Structure formats: C-alpha cells, structure tokens
C-alpha cells in the first residue's frame, strides 16, 4: 500500500463522515471507515487473483518441468535434434520443435502484418461509417472463431488444395499452418493497430492536409510514424498469439519433428507436441516432465513477447500532440 493510497482513504472517509453527520449522527467515523474499507479490500483481493493465477502457472510448470533436467542435460534438451520420447532409450531434444514454432510464427506474421495493419489503416482513414461498422463486426467475428474450426478448415480445405496445386508431398506443412495462423492473428493486429491510429492527434493530420499533403502522404508520413509504437505492440502480440496457438499447428503443420529444409516441409511446433503427446505420456514419467519443460519454454517465449509489447506501449505512449 502506498502512502498516497492510505491518505486517500482517510480523506474519503472523513468526507463521507462529514456528509453523514447531520442526517445520522450515530454513525461513527470508525464504522464509516469499515464500510468504505472492507469493500475496497474485497475488490483488491478479486483483482489480485490474476496475479495469483499467473504465479500458480509458473510454480506448477516449473515444479513438473524442471524434473526432466535431473535426467537429461539442458544442453542436449535444448539443442538436441532428435525428439523420440517413446523410444528405448528415449531422446528428448527439442530443437526441431523450437525451430518448428519459430518458422510458423515468422511466416504467418509475414502474411498477417500487411493484411492486419492494412485493414486498420483502411478502417481508420478511408472507410465510411457504415462500411466501418460492418468490417469491424466481421473482424470481431473472425476473432471469435474457435481455433479447432480453423484448424479443421485448414486440414480439409487448404492442405489438400495446396497439395494438388503445388504438387508437394504433403499439404500439411509450414505454409498451410502459417496461412491459418495468420487468419487468427489478423484480428489482434487490426484492433490494436486501429486504436493506435486513433490515438494520433487529429491536429497533426489536419496540419499535414493544410500544408497541401495528399491523403497518401499524410497516411505514410504522419499517421503511421505517429502510431508506430502501437502498431509494433500489435504485431508483437499477434506473433505471440500465433506462437502459442495449439489446435491449428496440431492439425495443419503435419507433426513431423524435423528441422525443415523448405517451407513445404512438415513441422511439429511446441504446442502441437504437448497437445498430441500428453494423453499418452505416462503420468510422472520422463516424457510427462519433458512435455512440461516444453511448456516452460513456450510460456517464457510468449511472456517475453508480451513484456516487450507492454514495454513498447508504455514507453512510447502518445500523451498528446506535444510528445510527437
């Protein structure tokens, strides 16, 4: 509790006490303090559950995951190329899984960034009010589609089509998985970018128009640079979402634990490995602990993405025209 907060409490109670003294002189300041204080701590406790859950996630991930390092040395865990958890003796090298995750994340952001940011620019600069309303609703509905549904469509529509058209050995590969992941990341990127574009002061845009700049010049030289930190946040959060997404990569990425040599190779990203194998991993065994250790890696990677995004959006927050 900071000093400022407790000061505020006292002020608030004495204010209410002052207001109540005439009508109800039996209510003492102490009672009022209880009446005001108890709800506050109740709501504070509720708000703290998110922190608590975050802490519990870390505690239980590490408790179950770190056990693997008693049996497998960390270097061969992180840099081993062979993931054969059910062989005898088993091999737990997750490099191929990490490379799988990174490849689908990067390739999907190549698709999602232009589409997502482009949609946001269209919505904030060019679209009329009616079109805007409908496109926004569509983006929102896209965000609400369950991942298993998109995974299913990727599996039965995109993958076979790609296999036929491009004549590749399997349609379940990095490219198909990335396309579906991009569809999932676009709503995140669009909505956060759009907020950032709106935060750019109108004055700046009007000044630019007044100087005779065209709409395109204003957009590319005033609007986008002004919203760059917000767009950066949007892109990072979209990538974080793609990296953590499970069902799509489980169903569409092909599932081969190998280091890919082309974009049309199958991969087995980390979430896919956890989801596919947890059901058959004997409880408390090495495989079980190894999957939790993959969970730690995945958790830390997305956590870093999110912290960077938070940092950027706090650090470069637009606080009015003067900071530009």
């Amino acid at each position, binding site marked *: 509790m900071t000093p400022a907060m407790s000061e505020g409490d006292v002020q608030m109670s004495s204010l209410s006490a002052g207001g109540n003294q005439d009508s109800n002189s039996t209510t003492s300041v102490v009672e009022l303090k209880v009446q005001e204080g108890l709800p506050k701590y109740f709501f504070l406790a509720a708000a703290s559950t998110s922190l608590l859950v*975050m802490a519990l996630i870390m505690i239980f991930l590490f408790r179950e995951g770190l056990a693997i390092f008693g049996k497998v040395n960390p270097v061969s865990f992180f840099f081993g190329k062979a993931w054969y958890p059910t062989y005898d003796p088993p091999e737990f090298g997750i490099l191929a899984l990490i490379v799988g995750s990174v490849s689908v994340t990067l390739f999907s952001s190549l698709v999602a960034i232009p589409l997502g940011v482009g949609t946001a620019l269209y919505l904030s600069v060019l679209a009329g009010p009616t079109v805007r309303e409908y496109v926004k609703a569509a983006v929102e509905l896209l965000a609400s589609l369950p991942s298993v549904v998109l995974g299913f469509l990727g599996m039965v529509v995109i993958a076979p089509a790609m296999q036929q058209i491009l004549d590749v050995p399997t349609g379940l590969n990095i490219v198909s998985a990335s396309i579906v992941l991009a569809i999932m990341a676009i709503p995140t990127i669009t909505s956060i970018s759009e907020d950032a574009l709106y935060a750019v002061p109108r004055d700046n845009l009007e000044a630019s128009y007044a100087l005779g700049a065209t709409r395109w010049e204003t957009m590319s030289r005033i609007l986008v640079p002004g919203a760059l930190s917000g767009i950066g946040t949007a892109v990072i959060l979209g990538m974080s979402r793609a990296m*953590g997404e499970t069902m799509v990569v489980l169903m569409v990425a092909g599932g081969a634990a190998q280091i890919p040599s082309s974009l049309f190779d199958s991969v087995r990203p980390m979430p896919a490995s956890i989801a596919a194998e947890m059901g058959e991993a004997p409880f408390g065994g090495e495989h079980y602990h190894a999957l939790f250790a993959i969970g730690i890696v995945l958790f830390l990677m997305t956590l870093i993405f999110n912290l960077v995004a938070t940092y950027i959006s706090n650090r470069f927050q637009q606080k009015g025209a003067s900071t530009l």
Partner: protein
Amino acid sequence: MTKGGIFPAIIGTFYLTIGSSLIALPLGVASAIYLSEYAREGWLLRLIRLGIQNLAGVPSVVFGLYGLALFVVFLGFGVSILAGSLTLGFLILPTVIGASEEAFRQVPSTFREASLALGATKFQTICRVVLPSAMPGVLTGSILGIGRAAGETAPIMFTAATFYTKHLPTSPLDQVMALPYHIYVLATSGTHIDQTRPLQYGTVLVLISLVLGINIFAIIIRTRMRRKKTW
C-alpha cells in the same frame, strides 16, 4: 465411430461454458470494479495490470498444463467438468476484466459525483449507480469471453474432455465429451476418417453456430445499447 449423435458433446460444452462463466464473471467484474473505481496509480496497480496482461497472453495449451498439474493432479479433481471449468474460467478472466473495466470507465463521473453528493458511500455508489449503468457493457464483453470458452480445445484436452462416453455427466467430477475436442478427434484419429467426414462437418457447423450465435447476440445488444445511451 460412424453412428450416434453429438448430444453428449453439446451437453458437455454447455456445462463447461456455464462452469467457466460462474468463475470468470464474478471474479472479472469484481476485479474491474477495483481497477476502475478504487485503484490509484502506483506500484500495486502496475503489478496487477502486468499480471492481467500477461495472463491474457498465456498460450491455451499452457493453461491446459496448469489445469492438469494443479486441478487434476494436485487438488485431485481428476479429469472432470470441475477441473475443465476452472481452467477455462481463468483463461477467459482477462477478457471479462478488460470488457468490464471499459464499461465502468464509460459511466460518466458526474453519475458518481451526484451519488456521493447525496451522502451515499462509495460502495453504495458502486452497487446502485455504477454497476447498473455499466451492466449492458459488462454483459456484452462477458458474453464474448464466454463464446471463447465454448470453442477452446487445448485447455480441456487434459482437464475435462474425453473422446467417448455413453453417459451424460451426473456430477461436476465426471468427464464429458465436448464439441471442440470431438471435432479434433474425429478429424485426426478416427479409424474411418473419410466415412466420418460428414459427421465432422456437421459437428463443426454446430460449434460455429453456437459460438457465432453467442457473439452476434452480444454485438446486437451492444449496438442497441449504443443507440439508446443518452449520456
């Protein structure tokens, strides 16, 4: 599996959705009240916000691992509706908090000032003025979160869902079938994947109708409220 209906899966998804909203709604709304009505700038508020933001970014499969380790194994709930609802509930908590906080912030401060000026305590003001005014917004946002819970697969794979059970659940400690997990299993590991294709499409259609129905419902409420709002 080429025969039989998906009623058990629909019921399972229904129970999981209800269970997760029972957890996420009260906690989420209470958190949002703290954030918008009580919290002051400072390290505590920054810490709580950091927790919520990062909770929102935790991958769904990691939530599954957390649910498995904490609820299924450590607390001994087993693979059950209870464990699945808790996992899903915390997954959608940040969504509910975000939507509710925004709804509270949109209530004009003059409403609060008028209530306080009449001698109401802060708690009375929140219960009788802020909460009712913000309710439509809170509900809309929460419904969007609930729609997400209905469609999630990875968090319930290890905590609640089973591929096949003949029985409808009779207690919160029973396993259930669930629509999203059913789609996944039918599409990937059935013995007659081609024969069950129509069943897969049918199940997907039911799930999409359910989730989009929930969302469109929320969007319609919100659009109406926006038009009605006079402040």
